[in-house]
């Protein structure tokens, strides 16, 4: 089977996105009043035009990339092994958990944990510095944003800071 270049993959993705938007996304998620007199002023006009152009670009990429030689990428970069995928997955989980923890634990405590976990996940060679930074950086940012910039930093339900 012919191995397709990345250009073709991106082109196929662009075409699929365009088709999704034209047939499902825009009709379902963009509301347009029924009394619009001219199509160019309709709220749906611009998204349809942009989706159409995206599809055309995607097609051009598929056609252009079809005869393009497949460039070999460095094996080290392309296949980092299961650990790389595990770290990526963990980072995604950290981000999702952060969204839930921010209003409940408070921004300072959440970011302290986020700092520490990510530093350890990145296999830092300076764990003590990481612990110190994990405590000091969120606190320093809290002091600046809450007391200098007057931003209402979420304090959470448990331990509140002055």
């Amino acid at each position, binding site marked *: 089977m012919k191995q397709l270049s990345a250009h073709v993959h991106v082109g196929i993705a662009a075409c699929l996105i365009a088709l999704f938007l034209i047939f499902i996304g825009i009709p379902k998620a*963009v509301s347009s009043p029924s009394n619009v007199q001219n199509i160019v002023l309709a709220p749906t006009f611009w998204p349809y035009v942009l989706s159409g152009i995206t599809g055309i670009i995607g097609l*051009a990429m598929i056609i252009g990339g079809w005869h393009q030689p497949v460039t070999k990428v460095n094996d080290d970069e392309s296949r980092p092994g299961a650990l*790389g995928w595990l770290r990526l997955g963990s*980072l995604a989980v950290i981000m999702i958990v952060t*969204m839930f923890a921010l209003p409940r634990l408070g*921004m300072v405590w959440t970011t302290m944990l986020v700092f520490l976990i990510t530093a350890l996940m*990145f296999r830092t060679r300076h764990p003590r510095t990481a612990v110190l930074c994990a405590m000091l950086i969120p606190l320093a940012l809290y002091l600046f944003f809450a007391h200098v910039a007057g931003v209402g930093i979420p304090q959470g339900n448990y331990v509140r800071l002055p």
Partner: protein
Amino acid sequence: MSLMDSLMAGLSLVSSFEAFAALFLGICIGVVGGAIPGLSATMAVALTLPFTFSMQPITGILLLLGVYKGGIFGGSRPAILIKTPGTPASSATILDGYPMAEQGEAGRALGMALWASCTADLVSNLALILFAGWLASFALKFGPPEFFALILFSLTIIAGVSGESLLRGALAAMMGLLLATVGLDLVYGTNRFTFGDPNMMGGLNFIAVLIGLFAIPEIIAMAWNPVAHLGQARQLGNSTVTFADYRRSFKSIIRGSLIGVFLGSIPGIGAAPSAFLSYSEARRNSPNKENFGKGEIEGVAASEAGNNGVAGATLIPLLALGVPGDVITAIIIGAFMVHGLQPGPMMFLLNVDIIYGLFIGLIVSSVFLLLIGSVAIKGFRFVADVPKRILMPAVLVLCIYGVFAVNNNIFDVGVMFVMGWLGYLMMCFRIPAAPFLIAFILGPLLEDNFRQAMLMSGSNPMILFRGPITWFFWLATVVTVFAITRSIFSKST
């Protein structure tokens, strides 16, 4: 208001300790940020942006301009010492800077980089002061059709020159334009891709999108491969730059500065092409052309003049037309917006004090850059030693605080994370992020001006070709598309 009145108004605005301290601090942050490979001047400006929210507009914008200018210069240090450009703009500096470092002349190369940067910065600032006002007064004649044609031209050139592939750049621009349609419709007030969520009715937060696109992908990339990529830093050596070196390279510095000014004033081209063009012109005209690539000091001077010459000039379209000249000025436009300022020709009428305050600050920034740069040359080792695996978690925490601070809204943090993953995917598929961001900023302007033009003309599309200004931009757009397409075909054959 006369020129003298405007100048005095600007001086009264900027002549405070805070304003100059912010500029000084900004250059320090930029020099350090630009010197850390993987952090880059762009990310340094993006991360500094949230700290400006509580400042006076002029102070905050000067801080960001300081980071911008410092960052562009800062990128030359790792380029010379470890063969890794701190910013893409410094790529050309490697060509002669690193061979000089190998020959034990890193100190001389860094000194020349500093002098060339400061000279080009000054030339660029003077060009800004001379041309921005003139261009703004001309732009006052623009109506919606002219602005539509101008923004379309800007998008074409941005999509075309910002990456290895025109189609990928264009795709990124389309994605940015599509994302910009999220929110309430400008004319009818109906929902577009809001899914009934009130957080999305005002559109996606610009700061969340930009930090997500530029900072978070670096953190995700570190999760993929956490091994730090810093190479072995070369010693500075004993040799330093002399006035004779500067005089010998002066022609190339001025030529490079002018190339930077010219390319910088065209939206989208940016500093890296300018540096390479300046370098190749210096090589073509130099009596020592055979030394280029082997450690020629004039090569370092030309590339640094080329990339720093852009820094002031990119502000010309930003201030005069409201169109960002490159990705960093696209971020700086966010600072203007946060402070309720809309860059463009009207700013020269409504906020002339801020404009002249910025001009004064920019002139002073060249002097500050010289002072800070001289000290920073010796301090590079400390910057190179910052462990990246501590730095990136710190960046992540900073991003969370900074994005939250814009609207006091946790939803924006979520937008930043999602945009971060999108940015990482784009990075993996080598789709450039810069056209995406610039299109995201220009998208509402493009649509707004198009629909206003249609409303003005009763939906007659001929209004988009109504006069010489619109014809000029349409012609420029066609020529640009033709030139880029031709260059692609000539490369592939």
